[in-house]
């Protein structure tokens, strides 16, 4: 009777089997088995670029914070995070403060992995150098953004092995710029001038970081810390590469029709068609469905056709009218930069005056908008613009170089570089119009030239900060007159607040003064 009771006994023992407790993730490769092949290195290298196209970076919010704070743009957005940005009244724990910070550090994390692991992989050394060079370039780029936007921030350079390694100390802004310089310097030495003739999976690709891009940003970083001689050298190196030129049609820099062109030194790649159809806003984990499009167009575009969260200032409009082309026409850059009240102006194919009235106070962003190609920015779907963002173009190099020459006492030598930029849009020779400028006059002229050439490209507020205008009462008063948003500027707030969440999670990290 009791015999069959004992058949059960082995079964009891079986139930406690320890082997059954070994479970591995069936969905994804673990980090332990990665970093073995050149394909791993290549794919990892590509991923470092991914942080350029998040909501916090160039998909949307970096545009918002770089533009709204300048006197070339303003915001009447109903969303506080945009509305308050240019008014220097951000919520320290808000989205605008947090999203860019998060996006850049995600990029740093990826770059660190490549820099740490790729050298250990046995593979083609030329390809390895290119991958490492791009990782250094991008890490430098992310640190450059962190330093110029957030001031004093941590510099993590290794990968945390456990939770104990998450707490990297805050470093002063100079050290962060210093790290960017070191990274760009490495990148200059490792990157090719072009990928046209390299051998490897990256052969023929455009949009990758090149030696010229690394030089350009190395120069820009020196410029930001007022190392004009070192900066000038890098800009000259870019010019001397001889591969960059201004495109004849200024507006071609801001559409998806002439991307990665001869003027473009480094641009962020976006597409309406490549990639998934879900919004890859980040900052969460990348998904296969994520699209690769940008949301600047719908955010900045004119109301009725887009959200109209960011608009040009009236001063940007009126400053364009100060100087006519040699042929007596309006500076064509005005038309490329904004929609404004003029009888011939069309907005996405519709008459400006019919839509907005004959109203001079209405100006809207046109640069980086899909006007002329789509009926509005909601079609076929909102947030899905494919226009690459030209992060640095040859015009930058020419005007930066001119500035370095002026700052190092070579004011006269600056003229031809400035004139190249003016000549493209038909403006008369500067040497004729304003000959023999003093260094200070040249500074003001450069400010004017840059204001118009780079209106709505996020350069203006960078310039204002590095020129020290916010600390100069006369300049601040001028800015307040040009853009009333500066009325609520408060010392220290030229830098964004370090996100409160980061201060709360990282002991010893201090908020920027003024916040």
């Amino acid at each position, binding site marked *: *009777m*009791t015999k*069959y*009771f004992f058949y059960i006994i082995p*079964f*009891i023992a*079986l*139930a406690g089997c*320890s082997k059954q407790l*070994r479970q*591995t*993730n*069936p*969905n994804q*490769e673990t*980090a332990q088995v*990665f970093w073995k092949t050149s394909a791993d290195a290549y*794919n*990892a290298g*590509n*991923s470092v*670029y*991914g942080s350029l*196209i998040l909501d916090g970076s160039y998909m949307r919010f970096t545009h918002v914070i770089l533009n709204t704070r300048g006197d070339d743009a303003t915001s009447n957005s109903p969303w*506080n995070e945009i509305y*308050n940005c240019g*008014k220097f*009244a951000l*919520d320290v724990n808000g989205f605008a403060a947090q999203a860019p*910070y998060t996006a850049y*550090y*995600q990029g740093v994390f990826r770059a660190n*992995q490549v820099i740490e692991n790729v050298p250990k992989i046995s593979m083609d050394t030329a390809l390895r150098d290119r991958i490492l060079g791009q990782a250094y370039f991008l890490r430098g780029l992310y640190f450059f953004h962190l330093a110029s936007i957030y001031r004093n921030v941590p510099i993590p350079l290794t990968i945390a092995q456990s*939770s104990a390694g998450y707490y990297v100390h805050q470093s002063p802004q100079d050290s962060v710029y210093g790290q960017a310089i070191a990274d760009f310097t490495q990148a200059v030495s490792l990157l090719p001038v072009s990928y046209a003739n390299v051998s490897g999976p990256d052969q023929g*690709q*455009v*949009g*990758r970081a090149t030696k010229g891009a690394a030089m350009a940003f190395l120069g820009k970083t020196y410029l930001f810390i007022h190392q004009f001689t070192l900066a000038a050298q890098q800009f000259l190196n870019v010019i001397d590469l001889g591969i960059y030129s201004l495109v004849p049609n200024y507006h071609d820099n801001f559409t998806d*029709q002439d*991307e*990665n062109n001869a003027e473009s030194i480094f641009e962020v790649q*976006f*597409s309406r068609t*490549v990639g*998934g159809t*879900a919004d890859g806003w*980040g900052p*969460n*984990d990348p*998904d*296969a469905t994520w699209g690769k499009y940008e949301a600047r167009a719908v955010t900045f575009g004119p109301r009725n056709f887009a959200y109209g969260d960011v608009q040009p200032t009236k001063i940007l409009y009126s400053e364009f009218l100060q100087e006519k082309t040699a042929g007596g026409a309006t500076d064509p850059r005005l038309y490329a930069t904004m929609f404004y009240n003029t009888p011939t102006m069309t907005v996405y194919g519709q008459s400006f005056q019919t839509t907005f009235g004959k109203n001079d106070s209405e100006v809207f962003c046109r640069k980086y908008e899909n006007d002329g190609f789509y009926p509005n920015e*909601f079609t*076929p779907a*909102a947030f899905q613009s494919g226009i690459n963002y030209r992060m640095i173009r040859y015009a930058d190099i020419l005007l930066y170089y001119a500035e370095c020459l002026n700052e190092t006492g070579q004011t006269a030598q600056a003229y031809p570089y400035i004139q190249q930029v003016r000549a493209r849009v038909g403006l008369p020779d500067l040497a004729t119009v304003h000959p023999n400028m003093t260094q200070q006059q040249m500074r003001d002229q450069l400010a004017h030239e840059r204001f118009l050439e780079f209106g709505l490209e996020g350069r203006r507020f960078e310039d204002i900060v590095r020129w020290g205008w916010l600390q100069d009462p006369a300049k601040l008063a001028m800015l307040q007159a040009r853009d009333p948003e500066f009325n*609520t500027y408060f010392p220290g707030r030229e830098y964004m607040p370090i*996100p409160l969440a*980061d201060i*709360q*999670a990282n*002991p010893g990290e201090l908020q920027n003064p003024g916040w």
Partner: protein
Amino acid sequence: MKKQLSRQIAIAIMKISLIPALLLMLVFCSYASDSRGQKLLDKKVNLQLVDEEMRNVFTALEKQIDAKFVYSPEIIGASRKVSVEAKDKQLSKVLSDLLEALNINYELVDNYIVLSKKTGKSPGYHSYGTIPDNSPYAYVKIGGRVVNSTGQPLEGVSVVVKGTNIGTTTNANGEFSLNVPDPQSTLVVSYIGYQGQEIPVADKTYLPIALTAENSQLNDVVVVGYGTVKKSDLTGSVGVVNVGNVEKVATYDVARSLQGQVAGVTVQGSGEPGGFVNIKIRGISSLNDNNPLFVIDGVPIVNEAPYDFPMDDIESIQVLKDASAGAIYGSRAAAGVIIITTKKGRSGPVRVKYSGYIGAQNMPKTLPLTNRQQYQQITTQAEKNAGLPIAAANDPSNAAYISNTNTDWQKAAFKTGVIQDHNLNFSGGTEATSYSMSLNYFDQSATIKGGPGEPKYNRYNANASIQSKAGILSFGGRFAFTESHKQNITYPHLHPNIGNEIVDLDRAIPTVPVNDPKRLGGFGGTDEVTQKAIVLNVIGMNNLMNSYSDRNRFLGNSWLELEPVKNLKYRLNLVYDRTETRDLFFEPQYDLGWYYLNNTAYLTDSRGAQYTALVENTLSYKFTLGQHRIDLLAGTTYEKDDLQNMTGLESGFNPPYYLSFGTGDPTTASVTSGEQRATMSSFLGRINYNYGDRYLITVNARRDGSSKFSPEHRWGNFGSVAGAWNISNEKFIHLPDAVSFLKLRGGYGTLGNQNFPSYYAYTTYINSNASYLFGNTPGSGNQYLAPGSIQTQVADPTLKWETKTTSNLALDLGLLNNTLLFTAEYFVNTDKDLIAQPPIPLSVGATNTPYVNAASLRNSGIEFTVTYHKTFGKLALNIEANAHTLKNKVLQLGGTNDPIYGAESKTEVGHEVGQIYGYVTEGIFQNTGDIQKHAIQPNAAPGDLKFRDIDGNDTINALDQTYLGSAIPKLYYGLNLSLSYGAWDASVFFQGNEGNKIVNGLYQTLMAGQYTNHYIDELNYWTPTHANTNVPRPVIGDPNGNDGPSDRWVQSGTYVKLQNAQLGYNFPTAKLNRTHVFKSIRVYVSGQNLLTLTKYKGYDPDIISDGLFSRGFDYGSFPNPRSYMVGLQVGF
């Protein structure tokens, strides 16, 4: 034959395959028709008693057989002294020898041997009270019906005429009829476990009688996990739920029904149909999942336990609150255990029962919001204060001024919902095998409008259980299938919601019409240019969008038990719990105004399945040695959890819409999928020791392994010890007469917990979707995808088990013959190494917050339970009250002790979890002089709030926030009052909590003074000429942060609710008998959430939140509806 069969069993089971085991069960069911009763009667017994009261003979026999004697002592004369001598004699023989002479019949019913007086006529077991024809008396025929305090009929109740041998017992409907010698006689009504009653006949011919359970709770058998124990023998902390009270709650969710019913249990819920609730036993014990483990008929249910389970099937509910009680469920028990036993079939002819209710539900409250004119006034002021032009729609001087639309969004959206529940049960069986089968349908529609997308929930459930016994083998199974459909509250996928259904409804501005035929889709929305407000038309959204979740769940468990040697039991329990889910989301093209414009119709369809397979083996043995009673238990369990899902996505659909892939733009289609698996293995043991019913000790030990930890941290050892001293059984202590029961209990133990949602948290992996794109030709738009793979998340490989240490001290007191029972308990629980995802620095660059052993907490509290049962003639009174306090303290947080911030809350060492946190306001700046005198508030202007400079550094910034109150109530309580009088019964249930604060996030958003709609209080805003107010100026952009986290939004969360009131009526049996169809009918009316006393300014202080770091934050929690119901319970 038998031998072969046993081998089959063994082989089948060793395959650990469920299906063969189930098939085997079916084979067995047919095989088991062998009369168990005959076997019992054939059983050999040994007995030698001389001159012993007959009742003691039966007691002695009961110890040798697996059956109980049932009899009316008066009728059979149980105190007569008899002598019995039996040596290895068949039971049937012993009984007939003994009883024949005494003119007593016996009959086997189920596990009972029913004794009755012999009448000469054929003996139906409830008809032995009929009177011999040759009786000398003039008899009066009377009838009656006996029910319990909740109106349920009691079967087998003894009804005897006082001072005579004349008597009878009640039938299955509780009815009896009897010939009494004198219309002035008195009836003695008695029933095991109930208080006896003497009822004067007083010339009546029909007597409805209600019996009250007598000290029942102490004799009740309590299910404690892999076994049962008498409540008086408990050592651990176990709360016994009065199912009668719980069943009155109209809900789909058992967890919801426990609100206020048990000391130490807190429930937070919302009124969203099909929404989950938060249930916590003795406070927060985990930073992930604080829901207790539900064990249904011995089956631990891992996934969303109470959700798919009909309320009507419940027989009993017990709550295990400390480590000693819960230890046996070990690694799943850290948050407490709720043990549910379902109704089982009993032997006898098929019984059919129906119970159901139908009711109406509505929103108990609407908030006072601004109308068109008030809205325009405030928003215009906000624009003026910001120096902005007035929005055209709000400007009377503008052509676009809106004066003819004044939508009251609450009025437009709120409606009456319907709730209904129907349950049909069949049960019956033979002596060997019994079955029960029930069918359930539940349906609830929302109290908010909106076409196809309005929230609703319905559920179909079929449930069958069977148990059988054949010799040393008993076995059974329970199989339940549930299909449910939940229409979710949905938001447009491209336009992240700003609030939620309630927040968005209230923020909607009055100048938008509900319907607008000019817009695509036909619903109103705001205009970007003229109105400037981003608000969502919730009614339109509900109509246009479609999102639902279907769940099909199969829960099967089969068990078998072998008892080769008396009291040595081996039990095998196999469980398979599988849920198939489908989540569909569809968004058509529509125009709901500014921001909510969609040109691309979009469909996602997720299919998933999750299952838990569980094998449990236990071996138990119990024995008695003189005064020592010992129960031993040892076992192993093995569990596997698996989760799979696949999501398809496509967009570009055009009307007419078909919700199938391929009908949209196929180039947009994509699929993602994944699977997760976790396993767990445990060894467990328990010793229960009882010395003379006075000293009781329970010892538990277990070893648990989980695949969720790295091999170095995989195994944990846990144990507990508890003891009790039953003082009232102590001979040397003489308690006052009023004290009928007194016991002291205490326990200490540890439990492990690995119940956090990530299955592979200790490993890092590579995300291969981190792609980018490059161009292939300079100057062209040609681009292609470049694959990207990288580690995007971080993981902590040192992750290990959470440990919970509990201490419990309790006193049980019974007074006045246990009509009044009182329990007080004090507990301290310490949770160490709690696994959580505290924020990590953003500079780590990870897309996740990894699971780490992040915190240690302590919870302590006192719990009181008082019950009082008393019958006064026809009136039966039942009072149950419970209350508990809870204190929470954070002992440690992560490696750095960094605080964790939630929504207007902060969790910090030395404080409680989720304490409310923000700025302290100090009134309003009246002029620029005021501002200059105050600490620097960079963007302040007259009319803005003044914040207190907490850190005294003369600048207001994030460091000036402070604690603003506790989100944890000081006291929770529940009070059930029920009484029955004859055929009528009535009950009320009050529930409440005391002393907590709520951050009213809804009020906050309605007082923001922006473009969205306002609470009426905002009309009192500051202006230079209206300075005497506490409402700051409205200003677009809110530069001063008037709307930020501050004491402005902190409100009292104290409330008392009349949660339930019910009035029932039982139809007289005599009338029902004439129908020959109905055996019992009870009808009732009830109301739920009838009254709330509170100062809270939101809809309902009973909110659902994250229950943790932001536990006090109410951001539009869906208000609990008020319900009115009629119900029917019928026995056929």
